[in-house]
């Protein structure tokens, strides 16, 4: 049994699986049910001044009949009085002292407001604070959420105010609705954040109804953008985690989230630099019980790899994540089709023929049986055929020996530069 305990900037947790601040963590009842199911921690649904909500709040995107490939919401922060939430946090923490309870906070960008809420929340025994600078709708119109999170100065200043009052570690949750997330991540670090978490939801409109022409969802015939999450956003989130993890200017731990649906996704986020993960959509789709497989699967994975502690995988893929200019231009792979596994659906052929490099031939053998073959000299190693192939093991992408030694774009430019201008500094 591997050690699944994690530590995010001093916040300890029995396992890396936290529920993100969202509808699943709206009440003590829910969070306690989650802890019973095995979740290591929960970030309480954002506390702040009680707000009004609208009816019709969620929408999801199906893909090829598969439900909830992506999820969109226009729900706001907690709709319950602060006192009620604080009472339930207290009770929950008392009942589950070893589980992690982090309070998500959002107030107007004023120093005294932040000081006040930090004080009140810490009094009931939370393990940490998460500042919601990411909510893309409703609160942003009031200058909070992503309206703060999109302005590095506001992120830095508010983090600083919180740190003035906070006794527990402060996590700053970042919005992805920004060109370069490392800018706000750096601002949070400058403001004294103990950790950052990402991503909050992405501005989205889930769909338009083809008959009524209403937005999906709509509130009495009118719609507004919501926040997008779920499996579809995972690649976006993973990149942002990776970009922050590899930035030399961001030296705080990361809590990763955005489409984490199972233990495999969790491993990916942790390899890419996250110290733990937060989950929402998968729980909303299937209930809290999914954590059982997350824990079990992660444990089995670590055991099979002979890794004693889940903390040993954190950031292991970060050195492998770089800029395009550092990729070897002479590295070469080609597709190889295993005809004994291939079922002859010809999807690789048509994908390559129409949309890639026209190097997969449909042929017939002596007996008239169809088979497919790659003309390796024309294959650019794009992977498309293996991506569209419906059968595991039918197409392998194999490395072939390069005629040239490794050379990156940056190497090449440096070499050209030194030839053209021998006196110039080749590194610049």
């Amino acid at each position, binding site marked *: 049994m591997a050690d699944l305990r994690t530590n995010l900037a001093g916040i300890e947790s029995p396992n890396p699986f936290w529920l993100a601040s969202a509808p699943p963590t709206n009440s003590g009842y829910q969070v306690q049910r989650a802890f019973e199911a095995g979740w290591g921690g929960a970030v309480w649904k954002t506390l702040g001044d009680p707000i009004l909500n609208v009816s019709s709040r969620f929408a999801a995107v199906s893909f*090829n*009949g*598969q439900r909830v490939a992506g999820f969109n919401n226009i729900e706001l922060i907690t709709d319950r009085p602060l006192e009620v939430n604080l009472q339930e946090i207290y009770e929950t923490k008392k009942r589950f002292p070893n589980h992690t309870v982090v309070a998500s906070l959002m107030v107007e960008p004023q120093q005294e407001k932040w000081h006040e809420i930090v004080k009140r929340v810490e009094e009931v025994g939370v393990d940490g604070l998460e500042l919601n600078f990411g909510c893309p709708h409703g609160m942003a119109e009031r200058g909070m959420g992503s309206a703060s999170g999109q302005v590095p100065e506001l992120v830095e200043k508010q983090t600083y105010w919180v740190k003035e009052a906070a006794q527990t570690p402060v996590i700053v949750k970042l919005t992805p609705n920004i060109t370069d997330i490392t800018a706000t991540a750096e601002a949070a670090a400058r403001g004294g954040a103990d950790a950052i978490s990402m991503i909050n939801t992405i501005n989205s409109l889930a769909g338009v109804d083809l008959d009524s022409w209403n937005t999906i969802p709509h509130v009495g015939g009118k719609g507004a953008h919501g926040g997008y999450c779920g499996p579809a956003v995972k690649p976006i989130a993973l990149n942002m985690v990776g970009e922050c993890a590899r930035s030399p200017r961001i030296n705080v731990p990361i809590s990763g989230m955005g489409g984490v649906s199972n233990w495999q996704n969790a491993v990916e986020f942790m390899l890419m630099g996250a110290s733990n993960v937060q989950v929402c959509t998968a729980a909303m789709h299937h209930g809290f019980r999914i954590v059982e497989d997350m824990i079990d699967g992660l444990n089995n994975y670590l055991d099979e790899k002979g890794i004693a502690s889940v903390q040993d995988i954190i950031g292991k893929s970060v050195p492998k994540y770089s800029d395009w200019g550092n990729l070897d231009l002479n590295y070469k792979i080609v597709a190889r089709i295993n005809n004994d596994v291939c*079922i*002859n*659906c*010809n*999807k690789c*052929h*048509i994908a390559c023929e129409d949309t890639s490099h026209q190097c997969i031939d*449909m042929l017939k053998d002596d007996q008239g049986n169809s088979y497919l073959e790659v003309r390796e000299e024309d294959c650019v190693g794009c992977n498309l055929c293996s991506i569209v192939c*419906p*059968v595991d093991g039918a197409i392998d992408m194999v490395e072939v020996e390069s005629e040239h030694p490794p050379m990156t774009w940056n190497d090449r430019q440096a070499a050209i530069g030194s030839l053209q201008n021998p006196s110039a500094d080749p590194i610049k």
Partner: protein
Amino acid sequence: MGNSEKLHISLTELPKNFQEVHPALSDREAVEEANRCLYCYDAPCIQACPTGIDIPTFIKKIASGNIKGSAKTIMTANPVGASCARVCPTEELCEGACVLNHSTKPIMIGDLQRYATDWAIKNDQVLFQKGQSNGKSVAIVGGGPAGLSAARELSLLGYDVTIFEASPTAGGLNTYGIVSFRLPQKISYWEVDQVKSLDVKIRTNTAVGKDVSADELLNSFDHVVLAAGMGRVPDLGIDGEDLDGVYDAIEFVKDTKTKPLSNRLVGKNVVVIGAGNTAIDGATCSVRLGAGNVKILYRRTQEEMSAYDFEYEFAKQDGVEFRWLTQPIKIHGDENGRVKAIECIKMELGEPGADGRRRPVPVEGSNFILPVDAVIKAIGQTRHQSLIDLFRLEHIDGVVQISEDYRTSNPKVFACGDITFGKGKSEAMVVTAAQQGKKAAYAIHSHYMEETVTA
């Protein structure tokens, strides 16, 4: 046909027994199954369909919610595609060719085809319009799958088409011959209506040679397509065949589709002679009419049986008993002229005959008597030789001889469907007849185009 579909026979409400047995896919099931289709390129299922339906395309259209387009893709290639969705031996055709046989499990192409065409039926869709008239006329003899198919294609190409149909309704086998728990009549009616909506005139209750002469057709139309199918079940050639309680399987099935269901077989013992698909139909209809015991008697073995495997399984699920190597030699009647027993002799397989199948030979002294109340004959179908003679066409034992372009010995007359099916030549499936109808239509048209070009 899944084994899970358990039969519950009602002895008091027989029509319930004749409701379609195979359930339709729900919207959700259809979408899930459609999304499982790989959308192969140059897909083998298309090659395996005698009418060449673009199966990946119609399935993709179900997945995208374009059900009308899906139904049109199906019906474009196969004018009786709604019936074929139910009666095709899909395991031997499209589904048998599905590449997923080599990986997971094949797509339920037949069920998806039914889903799309059912939608079109339910929503009263008219999918095609008559082409611009070219002034040419064609008479089609027989309004079954081949005739309807030829009519549809010719009408799309601009021909003025008249179908001469001896029965009260067109549709042929689909309307009258396939058991309603497999193919409800309304499906066939819809296909007939689709053809009618192309201004094809269908003269029902009009038998060529009786109500209208062959020469009249030859004289009043530019072309004739002979698509009259096959006739009744031939005589067994044994004593007692004219007794009350001896049925022709085709007529027997037709009665269950056209008349109020009779309770005369409730609790009775029935034997069916023969082991083709029609014999299975006769047997499973008997079960649904409440028969107490139904036996199929066949003079050869399961090996030589011509019924599809799924039909055989279906009959077994219905509790039909199979008596192999059993040849009826006499039907015994009672004093009122009603069937009371059938006398049979056991057979054994001897040397192979001309068709390669081992010939059954009687085992001397093995006679035995089965007490029965009804005998259903299903030993094949007779040929419409007299009709063929009226058109003075070359034929071999009632099988009209055609050239590669479906032309008979009279250059004006084309033929397609069962009337051209020779023994052992190919399998007489609805879907094959539909394809032949299309091809006969194209042959007429290419002939016309050649004439137009050379004129």
